[in-house]
Protein backbone atom coordinates (compact mmCIF):
# COMPACT_ATOMS: atom_id res chain seq x y z
CA UNK A 1 0.00 0.00 0.00
CA UNK A 2 2.66 2.49 1.04
CA UNK A 3 4.80 1.70 -2.02
CA UNK A 4 1.69 2.26 -4.04
CA UNK A 5 1.13 5.65 -2.44
CA UNK A 6 4.73 6.55 -3.04
CA UNK A 7 4.37 5.74 -6.71
CA UNK A 8 1.19 7.79 -6.91
CA UNK A 9 2.89 10.71 -5.19
CA UNK A 10 5.92 10.64 -7.48
CA UNK A 11 3.60 10.30 -10.45
CA UNK A 12 1.66 13.39 -9.39
CA UNK A 13 4.87 15.42 -9.03
CA UNK A 14 6.24 14.21 -12.36
CA UNK A 15 3.05 15.02 -14.18
CA UNK A 16 2.29 18.34 -12.48
CA UNK A 17 5.79 19.80 -12.50
CA UNK A 18 6.96 18.06 -15.67
CA UNK A 19 10.17 16.85 -14.04
CA UNK A 20 12.02 13.50 -13.95
CA UNK A 21 10.93 10.94 -11.32
CA UNK A 22 14.49 10.73 -10.04
CA UNK A 23 14.40 14.38 -8.89
CA UNK A 24 11.36 13.76 -6.68
CA UNK A 25 13.12 13.28 -3.33
CA UNK A 26 11.89 14.30 0.13
CA UNK A 27 14.32 17.23 0.04
CA UNK A 28 12.91 18.78 -3.15
CA UNK A 29 11.49 22.19 -2.19
CA UNK A 30 8.91 24.59 -3.54
CA UNK A 31 10.33 27.54 -5.49
CA UNK A 32 13.86 26.10 -5.60
CA UNK A 33 13.46 24.82 -9.15
CA UNK A 34 11.82 26.81 -11.92
CA UNK A 35 9.38 23.98 -12.62
CA UNK A 36 7.85 24.22 -9.13
CA UNK A 37 6.42 27.73 -9.09
CA UNK A 38 3.07 28.89 -7.75
CA UNK A 39 1.14 27.95 -10.88
CA UNK A 40 2.69 24.48 -10.99
CA UNK A 41 1.91 24.14 -7.28
CA UNK A 42 -1.78 24.52 -8.06
CA UNK A 43 -1.55 21.84 -10.72
CA UNK A 44 0.26 19.66 -8.19
CA UNK A 45 -2.44 20.19 -5.58
CA UNK A 46 -5.11 19.21 -8.10
CA UNK A 47 -3.11 16.10 -9.08
CA UNK A 48 -2.61 15.01 -5.46
CA UNK A 49 -6.28 15.57 -4.67
CA UNK A 50 -7.25 13.46 -7.63
CA UNK A 51 -4.92 10.48 -7.10
CA UNK A 52 -5.61 10.30 -3.36
CA UNK A 53 -9.26 11.35 -3.57
CA UNK A 54 -8.97 14.04 -0.90
CA UNK A 55 -9.59 17.76 -0.57
CA UNK A 56 -6.75 19.80 0.91
CA UNK A 57 -7.23 22.86 3.14
CA UNK A 58 -5.83 26.29 2.25
CA UNK A 59 -3.24 26.10 5.04
CA UNK A 60 -2.10 22.65 3.93
CA UNK A 61 -1.72 23.85 0.35
CA UNK A 62 0.47 26.70 1.57
CA UNK A 63 2.48 24.51 3.96
CA UNK A 64 3.28 21.92 1.31
CA UNK A 65 6.75 23.35 0.80
CA UNK A 66 8.67 20.14 0.02
CA UNK A 67 8.07 16.57 -1.04
CA UNK A 68 8.74 15.44 2.55
CA UNK A 69 6.27 17.98 3.88
CA UNK A 70 3.70 16.82 1.32
CA UNK A 71 3.97 13.26 2.69
CA UNK A 72 3.55 14.53 6.24
CA UNK A 73 0.46 16.57 5.31
CA UNK A 74 -1.05 13.73 3.29
CA UNK A 75 -0.60 11.56 6.41
CA UNK A 76 -3.19 13.75 8.12
CA UNK A 77 -5.62 12.75 5.37
CA UNK A 78 -4.90 9.05 6.07
CA UNK A 79 -2.57 8.70 3.12
CA UNK A 80 0.44 6.92 4.56
CA UNK A 81 3.92 6.37 3.20
Amino acid at each position, binding site marked *: MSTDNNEKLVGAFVEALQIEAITVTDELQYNTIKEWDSV*AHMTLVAALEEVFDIMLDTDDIIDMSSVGKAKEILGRYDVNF
Partner: protein
Amino acid sequence: MLCELRPKNVSPEAILAQDDTGARLCYGDLDALRDRWAAQVPGRQIVALLCANTVPMLGAYIGLQAAGHTVLLLSSKIAKSTLDSLTQLYQIGAIVQPGPEDAIVELRTDVTAPDLHPDLSVCLSTSGSTGSPKLVRFTAKQLAENALSIASYLNLTPDEKPLAHLPFEYSFGLSVLHSHMAVGATLLLTEHSVMQKQFWERFEHATSVAGVPFHFEMLLRMRLGRKSLPNLRTLTQAGGRLERKDAEAMHTIATEKGWKFHIMYGQTEAGPRISWLPFDKMASHFDCIGYAIPGVSLERSSEGNLVVNSPSIMMGYAETADDLSKGDQMAGKLMTGDLVEEPELGLFRIIGRKNRFIKLQGNRVSLSDVEIKLGELGFPVCCSGEDDTLVVFTEQSDTDIIRSTAIGLFSFPTRSLKVVHIEAFPRRSNEKIDYAALQLLAQEEI
Protein backbone atom coordinates in the same frame (compact mmCIF):
# COMPACT_ATOMS: atom_id res chain seq x y z
CA MET B 1 -1.42 66.64 -8.72
CA LEU B 2 -2.66 63.26 -7.66
CA CYS B 3 -2.27 63.96 -3.95
CA GLU B 4 -5.04 66.53 -4.41
CA LEU B 5 -7.29 63.56 -5.03
CA ARG B 6 -7.61 63.06 -1.28
CA PRO B 7 -10.91 64.40 0.03
CA LYS B 8 -10.68 67.96 1.36
CA ASN B 9 -12.16 66.95 4.70
CA VAL B 10 -10.03 63.85 5.30
CA SER B 11 -8.47 63.81 8.75
CA PRO B 12 -4.67 64.14 8.71
CA GLU B 13 -4.55 61.11 11.01
CA ALA B 14 -6.59 58.95 8.62
CA ILE B 15 -4.43 56.11 7.32
CA LEU B 16 -3.79 55.99 3.59
CA ALA B 17 -1.73 52.81 3.68
CA GLN B 18 -0.37 50.14 5.95
CA ASP B 19 2.20 47.66 4.68
CA ASP B 20 3.38 44.16 5.65
CA THR B 21 5.83 45.53 8.22
CA GLY B 22 3.05 47.46 9.96
CA ALA B 23 4.42 50.80 8.71
CA ARG B 24 1.72 53.40 8.10
CA LEU B 25 1.28 56.39 5.89
CA CYS B 26 -1.31 58.99 6.91
CA TYR B 27 -3.16 61.43 4.68
CA GLY B 28 -1.56 64.23 6.69
CA ASP B 29 1.95 63.00 5.73
CA LEU B 30 1.60 63.78 2.05
CA ASP B 31 2.72 67.43 2.17
CA ALA B 32 5.91 66.50 3.97
CA LEU B 33 6.55 63.82 1.34
CA ARG B 34 6.26 66.41 -1.40
CA ASP B 35 8.86 68.61 0.33
CA ARG B 36 11.16 65.69 0.99
CA TRP B 37 11.13 64.46 -2.62
CA ALA B 38 11.45 67.98 -4.05
CA ALA B 39 14.65 68.28 -2.01
CA GLN B 40 15.92 64.80 -2.75
CA VAL B 41 15.57 65.01 -6.53
CA PRO B 42 16.28 68.60 -7.60
CA GLY B 43 14.70 70.38 -10.55
CA ARG B 44 12.05 68.72 -12.68
CA GLN B 45 13.12 65.37 -14.01
CA ILE B 46 11.85 62.13 -15.38
CA VAL B 47 12.38 59.73 -12.49
CA ALA B 48 12.26 55.95 -12.78
CA LEU B 49 10.53 54.40 -9.78
CA LEU B 50 10.99 50.65 -9.30
CA CYS B 51 7.79 49.86 -7.47
CA ALA B 52 7.10 47.79 -4.37
CA ASN B 53 3.91 47.59 -2.34
CA THR B 54 5.45 49.19 0.73
CA VAL B 55 4.92 52.47 2.56
CA PRO B 56 8.33 53.92 1.57
CA MET B 57 7.78 53.24 -2.14
CA LEU B 58 4.19 54.46 -2.13
CA GLY B 59 5.47 57.56 -0.34
CA ALA B 60 8.15 58.02 -2.99
CA TYR B 61 5.56 57.79 -5.77
CA ILE B 62 3.22 60.32 -4.20
CA GLY B 63 6.05 62.63 -3.12
CA LEU B 64 7.87 62.65 -6.48
CA GLN B 65 4.65 63.22 -8.30
CA ALA B 66 3.55 66.01 -5.97
CA ALA B 67 6.98 67.64 -6.26
CA GLY B 68 6.30 68.04 -9.98
CA HIS B 69 8.51 65.30 -11.36
CA THR B 70 7.43 62.99 -14.14
CA VAL B 71 7.37 59.50 -12.64
CA LEU B 72 8.04 56.47 -14.80
CA LEU B 73 6.70 53.44 -12.93
CA LEU B 74 8.60 50.22 -13.54
CA SER B 75 8.72 46.73 -12.06
CA SER B 76 11.38 46.17 -9.42
CA LYS B 77 12.07 42.89 -11.25
CA ILE B 78 13.14 44.75 -14.39
CA ALA B 79 16.33 43.38 -15.98
CA LYS B 80 19.30 45.70 -15.43
CA SER B 81 19.99 45.86 -19.16
CA THR B 82 16.40 47.00 -19.82
CA LEU B 83 16.64 49.67 -17.14
CA ASP B 84 19.96 50.86 -18.54
CA SER B 85 18.58 51.22 -22.04
CA LEU B 86 15.48 53.07 -20.75
CA THR B 87 17.70 55.40 -18.73
CA GLN B 88 19.73 56.14 -21.83
CA LEU B 89 16.75 56.50 -24.16
CA TYR B 90 14.74 58.88 -21.96
CA GLN B 91 17.69 60.56 -20.19
CA ILE B 92 16.24 59.55 -16.84
CA GLY B 93 17.50 61.89 -14.12
CA ALA B 94 17.05 59.66 -11.08
CA ILE B 95 16.32 56.05 -10.24
CA VAL B 96 14.44 55.32 -7.03
CA GLN B 97 14.25 51.73 -5.83
CA PRO B 98 13.31 49.77 -2.72
CA GLY B 99 16.02 49.49 -0.08
CA PRO B 100 16.18 47.43 3.11
CA GLU B 101 14.31 50.18 4.99
CA ASP B 102 13.74 53.30 2.95
CA ALA B 103 13.76 54.05 -0.77
CA ILE B 104 17.22 54.32 -2.34
CA VAL B 105 17.84 57.24 -4.68
CA GLU B 106 20.43 57.27 -7.42
CA LEU B 107 20.85 60.64 -9.14
CA ARG B 108 22.24 60.43 -12.68
CA THR B 109 24.72 63.13 -13.53
CA ASP B 110 25.55 61.85 -17.00
CA VAL B 111 22.21 62.76 -18.58
CA THR B 112 20.82 65.79 -20.34
CA ALA B 113 17.38 66.36 -18.84
CA PRO B 114 14.82 66.18 -21.67
CA ASP B 115 12.14 68.82 -22.19
CA LEU B 116 9.12 67.59 -20.27
CA HIS B 117 5.63 68.78 -21.15
CA PRO B 118 4.35 70.87 -18.22
CA ASP B 119 1.37 68.52 -17.71
CA LEU B 120 3.28 65.25 -18.07
CA SER B 121 2.97 63.53 -14.72
CA VAL B 122 3.10 59.73 -14.95
CA CYS B 123 4.50 57.34 -17.55
CA LEU B 124 3.78 53.63 -17.70
CA SER B 125 5.38 51.01 -19.91
CA THR B 126 3.09 49.61 -22.61
CA SER B 127 4.15 46.11 -21.71
CA GLY B 128 5.18 45.61 -18.12
CA SER B 129 6.83 42.23 -18.42
CA THR B 130 8.87 42.93 -21.53
CA GLY B 131 9.81 46.40 -20.18
CA SER B 132 8.91 47.76 -23.58
CA PRO B 133 10.71 51.05 -24.29
CA LYS B 134 7.40 52.41 -25.57
CA LEU B 135 5.71 54.44 -22.84
CA VAL B 136 2.20 55.68 -22.19
CA ARG B 137 2.05 59.37 -21.12
CA PHE B 138 -0.50 60.74 -18.65
CA THR B 139 -1.39 64.02 -17.01
CA ALA B 140 -2.38 63.83 -13.35
CA LYS B 141 -5.84 65.04 -14.32
CA GLN B 142 -6.42 62.14 -16.71
CA LEU B 143 -5.60 59.60 -14.00
CA ALA B 144 -7.61 61.51 -11.40
CA GLU B 145 -10.74 61.51 -13.61
CA ASN B 146 -10.55 57.73 -13.87
CA ALA B 147 -10.05 57.36 -10.12
CA LEU B 148 -13.16 59.44 -9.40
CA SER B 149 -15.20 57.46 -11.92
CA ILE B 150 -14.14 54.16 -10.30
CA ALA B 151 -14.91 55.48 -6.81
CA SER B 152 -18.35 56.44 -8.06
CA TYR B 153 -19.40 53.21 -9.83
CA LEU B 154 -17.98 50.94 -7.12
CA ASN B 155 -19.53 53.18 -4.45
CA LEU B 156 -16.25 53.39 -2.58
CA THR B 157 -16.45 54.70 0.99
CA PRO B 158 -13.78 55.87 3.48
CA ASP B 159 -14.09 52.61 5.43
CA GLU B 160 -12.81 50.55 2.48
CA LYS B 161 -9.65 48.52 3.08
CA PRO B 162 -8.60 47.00 -0.23
CA LEU B 163 -5.91 44.33 -0.15
CA ALA B 164 -3.49 46.15 -2.46
CA HIS B 165 -1.32 43.34 -3.80
CA LEU B 166 -1.20 44.39 -7.47
CA PRO B 167 1.99 46.26 -8.32
CA PHE B 168 1.67 50.00 -8.96
CA GLU B 169 3.57 49.90 -12.24
CA TYR B 170 0.59 47.94 -13.49
CA SER B 171 -2.19 50.34 -14.50
CA PHE B 172 -4.83 48.24 -12.69
CA GLY B 173 -2.79 48.31 -9.46
CA LEU B 174 -2.30 52.06 -9.83
CA SER B 175 -6.03 52.60 -10.28
CA VAL B 176 -6.74 50.73 -7.04
CA LEU B 177 -4.42 53.17 -5.27
CA HIS B 178 -5.85 56.32 -6.89
CA SER B 179 -9.51 55.40 -6.56
CA HIS B 180 -9.20 54.62 -2.86
CA MET B 181 -7.14 57.72 -2.17
CA ALA B 182 -9.98 59.70 -3.71
CA VAL B 183 -12.34 58.66 -0.91
CA GLY B 184 -9.89 58.71 2.00
CA ALA B 185 -9.78 54.91 2.36
CA THR B 186 -6.95 52.71 3.69
CA LEU B 187 -4.83 50.51 1.42
CA LEU B 188 -3.56 47.27 2.89
CA LEU B 189 -0.32 47.10 0.93
CA THR B 190 1.17 43.66 0.56
CA GLU B 191 4.10 42.14 -1.22
CA HIS B 192 2.86 38.63 -0.47
CA SER B 193 1.26 36.35 -3.02
CA VAL B 194 -1.82 34.15 -2.82
CA MET B 195 0.52 31.24 -2.08
CA GLN B 196 1.74 32.74 1.18
CA LYS B 197 0.19 32.55 4.66
CA GLN B 198 0.75 36.25 5.24
CA PHE B 199 -1.41 37.07 2.22
CA TRP B 200 -4.36 35.32 3.82
CA GLU B 201 -3.69 36.89 7.23
CA ARG B 202 -3.93 40.34 5.69
CA PHE B 203 -6.84 39.29 3.46
CA GLU B 204 -8.92 38.68 6.63
CA HIS B 205 -8.85 42.41 7.33
CA ALA B 206 -9.65 43.49 3.77
CA THR B 207 -13.01 44.74 2.51
CA SER B 208 -12.08 44.18 -1.13
CA VAL B 209 -9.57 42.60 -3.46
CA ALA B 210 -8.77 43.25 -7.11
CA GLY B 211 -7.14 40.70 -9.36
CA VAL B 212 -6.41 39.43 -12.84
CA PRO B 213 -7.74 36.04 -14.07
CA PHE B 214 -4.64 34.30 -12.69
CA HIS B 215 -5.38 35.54 -9.15
CA PHE B 216 -8.96 34.32 -9.26
CA GLU B 217 -7.88 30.92 -10.55
CA MET B 218 -5.48 30.74 -7.61
CA LEU B 219 -8.02 32.00 -5.07
CA LEU B 220 -10.49 29.38 -6.24
CA ARG B 221 -7.90 26.63 -6.03
CA MET B 222 -7.03 27.83 -2.55
CA ARG B 223 -10.63 27.24 -1.47
CA LEU B 224 -11.71 30.87 -1.35
CA GLY B 225 -15.26 29.67 -0.78
CA ARG B 226 -14.33 27.85 2.41
CA LYS B 227 -12.30 30.63 3.99
CA SER B 228 -13.74 32.88 6.61
CA LEU B 229 -13.22 36.43 5.38
CA PRO B 230 -15.51 38.41 7.66
CA ASN B 231 -14.76 41.86 6.26
CA LEU B 232 -14.80 41.08 2.55
CA ARG B 233 -17.49 42.81 0.50
CA THR B 234 -16.23 43.33 -3.04
CA LEU B 235 -14.04 41.51 -5.56
CA THR B 236 -13.10 43.04 -8.89
CA GLN B 237 -11.53 41.29 -11.84
CA ALA B 238 -9.83 42.90 -14.81
CA GLY B 239 -6.69 42.31 -16.86
CA GLY B 240 -8.00 39.84 -19.43
CA ARG B 241 -10.84 37.42 -19.86
CA LEU B 242 -11.63 35.14 -16.94
CA GLU B 243 -12.47 31.64 -18.10
CA ARG B 244 -16.16 30.98 -18.01
CA LYS B 245 -15.94 28.17 -15.43
CA ASP B 246 -13.96 30.44 -13.09
CA ALA B 247 -16.33 33.36 -13.63
CA GLU B 248 -19.27 31.14 -12.81
CA ALA B 249 -17.54 29.65 -9.77
CA MET B 250 -16.72 33.13 -8.51
CA HIS B 251 -20.24 34.32 -9.10
CA THR B 252 -21.68 31.34 -7.19
CA ILE B 253 -19.36 31.78 -4.19
CA ALA B 254 -19.91 35.54 -4.11
CA THR B 255 -23.68 35.10 -4.21
CA GLU B 256 -23.53 32.58 -1.34
CA LYS B 257 -21.33 34.78 0.78
CA GLY B 258 -23.05 38.06 -0.02
CA TRP B 259 -19.98 39.47 -1.79
CA LYS B 260 -20.13 41.55 -4.94
CA PHE B 261 -17.99 40.17 -7.74
CA HIS B 262 -17.58 42.56 -10.67
CA ILE B 263 -15.86 42.06 -13.98
CA MET B 264 -14.16 45.14 -15.38
CA TYR B 265 -12.46 45.98 -18.65
CA GLY B 266 -9.78 48.52 -19.37
CA GLN B 267 -6.57 49.30 -21.19
CA THR B 268 -3.50 51.04 -19.89
CA GLU B 269 -3.94 53.69 -22.61
CA ALA B 270 -7.40 54.51 -21.24
CA GLY B 271 -6.07 55.31 -17.80
CA PRO B 272 -7.16 52.40 -17.42
CA ARG B 273 -10.84 51.57 -16.68
CA ILE B 274 -13.28 51.61 -19.58
CA SER B 275 -16.29 49.47 -18.73
CA TRP B 276 -17.66 47.22 -16.05
CA LEU B 277 -20.14 44.38 -15.64
CA PRO B 278 -22.06 44.87 -12.39
CA PHE B 279 -22.49 41.70 -10.31
CA ASP B 280 -26.25 41.59 -10.91
CA LYS B 281 -25.63 41.30 -14.67
CA MET B 282 -23.10 38.50 -14.25
CA ALA B 283 -25.34 35.46 -14.48
CA SER B 284 -26.73 36.46 -17.87
CA HIS B 285 -23.60 38.07 -19.35
CA PHE B 286 -20.49 36.22 -18.16
CA ASP B 287 -18.73 36.80 -21.43
CA CYS B 288 -19.30 40.56 -21.70
CA ILE B 289 -17.18 43.55 -20.74
CA GLY B 290 -20.31 45.40 -19.69
CA TYR B 291 -21.23 49.06 -19.74
CA ALA B 292 -19.16 52.24 -20.01
CA ILE B 293 -18.10 53.58 -16.63
CA PRO B 294 -19.26 57.10 -15.62
CA GLY B 295 -17.71 59.81 -17.79
CA VAL B 296 -16.85 57.36 -20.59
CA SER B 297 -18.76 56.64 -23.79
CA LEU B 298 -18.27 53.66 -26.07
CA GLU B 299 -18.99 53.13 -29.73
CA ARG B 300 -18.46 50.40 -32.27
CA SER B 301 -16.71 51.64 -35.40
CA SER B 302 -17.89 50.52 -38.83
CA GLU B 303 -15.10 47.87 -38.79
CA GLY B 304 -16.31 46.58 -35.41
CA ASN B 305 -13.49 48.19 -33.43
CA LEU B 306 -14.29 49.38 -29.90
CA VAL B 307 -13.75 53.14 -29.72
CA VAL B 308 -13.51 54.78 -26.30
CA ASN B 309 -14.21 58.43 -25.54
CA SER B 310 -12.94 59.25 -22.08
CA PRO B 311 -11.32 62.12 -20.18
CA SER B 312 -8.72 59.56 -19.04
CA ILE B 313 -7.31 58.60 -22.43
CA MET B 314 -3.53 59.05 -22.36
CA MET B 315 -1.76 62.08 -23.87
CA GLY B 316 -0.10 59.66 -26.28
CA TYR B 317 2.86 57.30 -26.49
CA ALA B 318 6.54 58.09 -26.12
CA GLU B 319 9.25 56.29 -28.02
CA THR B 320 12.00 58.90 -27.74
CA ALA B 321 13.00 61.55 -25.19
CA ASP B 322 11.63 64.20 -27.58
CA ASP B 323 8.16 62.70 -27.29
CA LEU B 324 8.13 63.66 -23.59
CA SER B 325 7.72 67.31 -24.58
CA LYS B 326 4.61 66.64 -26.64
CA GLY B 327 1.11 67.62 -25.55
CA ASP B 328 -2.11 65.64 -25.80
CA GLN B 329 -2.23 63.86 -29.16
CA MET B 330 -5.31 61.74 -28.50
CA ALA B 331 -8.02 64.30 -27.67
CA GLY B 332 -9.80 61.80 -25.43
CA LYS B 333 -10.38 59.15 -28.08
CA LEU B 334 -8.86 55.66 -28.23
CA MET B 335 -9.20 52.90 -30.81
CA THR B 336 -8.78 49.85 -28.59
CA GLY B 337 -7.98 47.28 -31.26
CA ASP B 338 -10.58 45.03 -29.64
CA LEU B 339 -13.34 43.84 -31.96
CA VAL B 340 -16.72 43.97 -30.29
CA GLU B 341 -20.43 43.35 -30.67
CA GLU B 342 -23.21 45.03 -28.75
CA PRO B 343 -25.76 42.37 -27.73
CA GLU B 344 -27.80 44.91 -25.76
CA LEU B 345 -27.82 48.66 -26.02
CA GLY B 346 -24.69 49.95 -24.31
CA LEU B 347 -23.48 46.47 -23.32
CA PHE B 348 -20.41 45.17 -25.15
CA ARG B 349 -18.79 41.81 -25.78
CA ILE B 350 -15.26 41.32 -27.16
CA ILE B 351 -15.11 38.88 -30.05
CA GLY B 352 -11.52 39.30 -31.22
CA ARG B 353 -8.40 41.38 -31.11
CA LYS B 354 -6.59 43.22 -33.87
CA ASN B 355 -3.44 44.00 -31.96
CA ARG B 356 -0.50 41.68 -31.50
CA PHE B 357 -0.75 41.47 -27.73
CA ILE B 358 -1.51 38.67 -25.34
CA LYS B 359 -1.80 38.74 -21.57
CA LEU B 360 0.21 36.47 -19.31
CA GLN B 361 -1.17 36.49 -15.79
CA GLY B 362 -2.75 39.85 -16.56
CA ASN B 363 0.44 41.46 -17.86
CA ARG B 364 0.29 42.58 -21.43
CA VAL B 365 3.02 41.10 -23.56
CA SER B 366 3.79 42.61 -26.94
CA LEU B 367 4.53 39.76 -29.33
CA SER B 368 6.59 42.13 -31.50
CA ASP B 369 8.74 43.12 -28.50
CA VAL B 370 9.53 39.48 -27.78
CA GLU B 371 10.42 38.93 -31.44
CA ILE B 372 12.63 42.01 -31.58
CA LYS B 373 14.50 41.37 -28.32
CA LEU B 374 15.16 37.68 -29.00
CA GLY B 375 16.11 38.55 -32.57
CA GLU B 376 18.72 41.02 -31.31
CA LEU B 377 20.30 38.20 -29.31
CA GLY B 378 20.59 36.01 -32.38
CA PHE B 379 17.35 34.07 -32.00
CA PRO B 380 14.99 34.97 -34.83
CA VAL B 381 11.52 33.92 -33.64
CA CYS B 382 7.86 34.47 -34.45
CA CYS B 383 5.33 34.67 -31.66
CA SER B 384 1.69 33.80 -31.34
CA GLY B 385 -0.62 32.46 -28.66
CA GLU B 386 -3.58 33.46 -26.57
CA ASP B 387 -4.07 34.82 -23.07
CA ASP B 388 -1.92 32.86 -20.61
CA THR B 389 -0.03 30.93 -23.30
CA LEU B 390 2.76 32.44 -25.36
CA VAL B 391 3.97 30.27 -28.23
CA VAL B 392 7.40 31.16 -29.59
CA PHE B 393 8.25 29.57 -32.95
CA THR B 394 11.85 29.12 -34.04
CA GLU B 395 13.54 27.63 -37.07
CA GLN B 396 16.48 26.69 -34.83
CA SER B 397 16.56 23.21 -33.32
CA ASP B 398 17.80 24.21 -29.87
CA THR B 399 14.56 25.32 -28.23
CA ASP B 400 15.93 25.06 -24.66
CA ILE B 401 18.30 27.98 -25.04
CA ILE B 402 15.54 30.18 -26.45
CA ARG B 403 13.28 29.15 -23.63
CA SER B 404 15.82 29.99 -20.93
CA THR B 405 16.80 33.24 -22.66
CA ALA B 406 13.18 34.36 -22.91
CA ILE B 407 12.51 33.54 -19.26
CA GLY B 408 15.71 35.29 -18.18
CA LEU B 409 14.84 38.36 -20.23
CA PHE B 410 11.14 38.74 -19.55
CA SER B 411 10.51 36.67 -16.35
CA PHE B 412 7.66 34.87 -18.09
CA PRO B 413 5.85 32.33 -15.92
CA THR B 414 7.45 29.07 -17.09
CA ARG B 415 4.22 27.22 -17.75
CA SER B 416 2.86 30.04 -19.90
CA LEU B 417 5.70 29.71 -22.39
CA LYS B 418 5.98 27.17 -25.19
CA VAL B 419 8.95 27.19 -27.56
CA VAL B 420 8.29 25.22 -30.71
CA HIS B 421 10.67 24.23 -33.48
CA ILE B 422 9.27 24.72 -36.98
CA GLU B 423 10.86 23.96 -40.38
CA ALA B 424 10.05 27.37 -41.83
CA PHE B 425 7.91 30.30 -40.67
CA PRO B 426 4.66 30.54 -42.65
CA ARG B 427 4.92 33.50 -45.03
CA ARG B 428 2.55 35.35 -47.30
CA SER B 429 3.28 35.99 -50.95
CA ASN B 430 4.93 39.31 -50.03
CA GLU B 431 7.32 37.35 -47.75
CA LYS B 432 5.82 38.86 -44.64
CA ILE B 433 5.08 36.46 -41.78
CA ASP B 434 1.60 34.99 -42.12
CA TYR B 435 0.36 35.55 -38.57
CA ALA B 436 -3.04 34.03 -39.27
CA ALA B 437 -1.36 30.75 -40.27
CA LEU B 438 0.94 31.05 -37.29
CA GLN B 439 -2.05 31.45 -35.00
CA LEU B 440 -3.47 28.17 -36.31
CA LEU B 441 -0.15 26.42 -35.62
CA ALA B 442 -0.14 27.94 -32.14
CA GLN B 443 -3.65 26.63 -31.46
CA GLU B 444 -2.33 23.10 -31.98
CA GLU B 445 0.24 23.69 -29.24
CA ILE B 446 -2.15 25.16 -26.66
